[in-house]
């Protein structure tokens, strides 16, 4: 089937006139997006070297998707970065990527320049580089082991880590999803997921490498309920993939109802658990022809690695969270205990994944790669593993996995993967803070709150602390509540007693 470039060429040959991106500002055909990607390739060819990454502030325009394609053609790793990140976090990401320029829409130039990073990181407008000369892609060989993209996720040491995924990982991924989810021409995927968020990998590769159509939903449109509903009714998407939080939110706001969901053939969710009580409500408004799918997978293993097609007729009997399903062919899972020993079938332990979809590691971070990946450098894909930190149970009779919890302090909040230590470290970097602890308190089966406890000289410091961490953390990581204490409670080891803090909240 060839590499990613060859595969995309074939899609363009077969679907040149078909719509690749159905944006609210207009449609872009496959021939057109290919021609934009060729112009951007010219720019990348001048500015970049193979293997050296580029950062993209993605606005979900046809040009931004074309940029990703161009980077893939050229064997240049791209990283989609959220412009809303505070300057310090953006700076940390750019420093990991060690790149000196960023590409984004012209309207974001000022916002980017205001972050004070423009002395070291130059801003190029996507509109400008899309208007360049047509570039002839030579037979430049891109090795399958080349990194295709770097996806940043929260890190417990305070700095986000960049998960690197190779062309080879993606080829396997595309082969799997295009078959199991019947992706191809005449299918329309709604791109609700932010591009700096792992779920978007499915939207992008599931569209452009199968000949389907992508319908972008940017963050403004997501919160403009009437316009969003109208977009769905007009464009008639067939495929939905998002975190459960987004589905629950839009169902409660009445954007999603029987009418607006009528065109969907698949509604797929993942990234966090979808509790049965809410899932049953969603099921009630889906058409009978629609498949409901629960998927699972860490960012480190190329988006998703297991799928469970739910039997909707038996949904009434579901208790708790639905099964994560079986691992996709090629993946192997081991369930290990605290000491690394393999658990007896049916017991709970940490899931360690093996196989060719395991990513390359954390970009420019061998230390964290070595601690989370097994045989990261092995040439034999079957030997390479990733310690997920997810506690699961395998049902021996069905071969399906069930999510039980986490082995560490990572949480999923509104679908975002957050290490609570990153928030604690951000708090501790505020000048007046003596100590800080963060807990996640589930308010219901579907919603939770990040609560921070801080001790400082005086309670009045709180308002300043709130302001300070807004400059360090992205908005979804900001604590909803700040509780001031003269001193935080300690356990017998002298460590902060989080159990006691939790009891205080619940009391």
């Amino acid at each position, binding site marked *: 089937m060839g590499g990613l470039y060859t595969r995309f060429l074939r899609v363009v040959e077969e679907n040149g006139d078909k719509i690749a991106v159905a944006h609210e500002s207009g449609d872009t055909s496959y021939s057109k997006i290919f021609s934009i990607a060729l112009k951007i390739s010219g720019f990348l060819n001048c500015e970049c070297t193979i293997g050296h990454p580029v950062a993209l502030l993605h606005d979900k325009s046809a040009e931004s998707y074309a940029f990703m394609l161009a980077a893939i053609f050229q064997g240049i790793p791209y990283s989609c970065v959220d412009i809303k990140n505070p300057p310090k976090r953006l700076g940390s990401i750019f420093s990991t990527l060690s790149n000196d320029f960023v590409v984004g829409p012209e309207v974001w130039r000022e916002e980017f320049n205001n972050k004070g990073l423009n002395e070291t990181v130059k801003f190029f407008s996507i509109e400008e580089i899309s208007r360049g000369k047509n570039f002839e892609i030579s037979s430049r060989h891109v090795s399958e082991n080349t990194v295709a993209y770097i996806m940043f996720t929260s890190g417990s040491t305070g700095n986000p880590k960049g998960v690197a995924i190779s062309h080879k990982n993606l080829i396997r991924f595309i082969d799997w999803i295009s078959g199991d989810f019947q992706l191809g021409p005449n299918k329309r995927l709604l791109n609700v997921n932010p591009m700096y968020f792992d779920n978007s990998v499915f939207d992008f590769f599931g569209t452009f490498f199968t000949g389907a159509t992508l319908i972008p939903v940017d963050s403004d449109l997501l919160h403009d309920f*009437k316009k969003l509903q109208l977009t769905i009714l007009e464009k008639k998407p067939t495929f939905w993939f998002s975190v459960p939080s987004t589905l629950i*939110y839009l169902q409660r706001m*009445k*954007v999603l109802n029987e009418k607006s969901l009528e065109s969907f053939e698949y509604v797929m969710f993942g990234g966090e658990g979808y509790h049965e009580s809410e899932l049953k409500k969603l099921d009630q408004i889906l058409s009978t022809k629609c498949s409901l799918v629960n998927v699972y997978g860490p960012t480190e293993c190329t988006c998703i690695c297991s799928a469970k097609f739910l039997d909707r007729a038996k949904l009434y009997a579901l208790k708790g969270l639905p099964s994560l399903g079986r691992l996709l062919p090629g993946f192997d899972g081991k369930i290990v205990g605290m000491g690394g020993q393999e658990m007896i079938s049916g017991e709970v332990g940490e899931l360690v994944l093996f196989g060719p979809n395991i990513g390359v590691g954390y970009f420019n971070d061998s230390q964290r790669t070595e601690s989370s990946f097994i045989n990261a450098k092995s040439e034999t894909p079957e030997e390479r593993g990733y310690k997920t930190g997810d506690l699961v149970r395998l049902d021996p009779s069905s071969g399906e996995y069930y999510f039980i919890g986490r082995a560490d302090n990572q949480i999923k909040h509104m679908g975002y993967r957050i290490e609570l230590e990153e928030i604690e470290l951000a708090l501790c970097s505020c000048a007046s803070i003596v100590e800080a602890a963060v807990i996640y308190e589930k308010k219901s089966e579907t919603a939770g709150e990040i609560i921070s406890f801080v001790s400082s000289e005086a309670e009045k410091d709180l308002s300043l602390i709130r302001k300070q961490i807004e400059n360090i953390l992205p908005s979804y990581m900001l604590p909803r509540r700040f509780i001031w204490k003269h001193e935080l409670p300690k356990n017998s080891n002298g460590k902060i007693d989080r159990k006691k803090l939790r009891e205080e909240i619940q009391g």
Partner: protein
Amino acid sequence: MTDKENQVKQILSRALRLEITEITDEIKMSERPEWDSLSHMEVIVALEEEFNTSFSLDEIVEMNSVSRIIGALKEKNCLED
């Protein structure tokens, strides 16, 4: 202020994490950072449960201030004693 109007303000106070005294008729979604889209969802769900009613998409979009929320509930006869 009737008991039921007071109930509305208590719901807003809980969802927006503001003191009940801060919930005045003049509060607007666009002017309060606490009243973001997620808090708005909390408000709508709590009102639907409390008053055993259901709002349409148009109503949800319109209910962006305390006075408009009270207006929408009055229209549904939810505030009658």
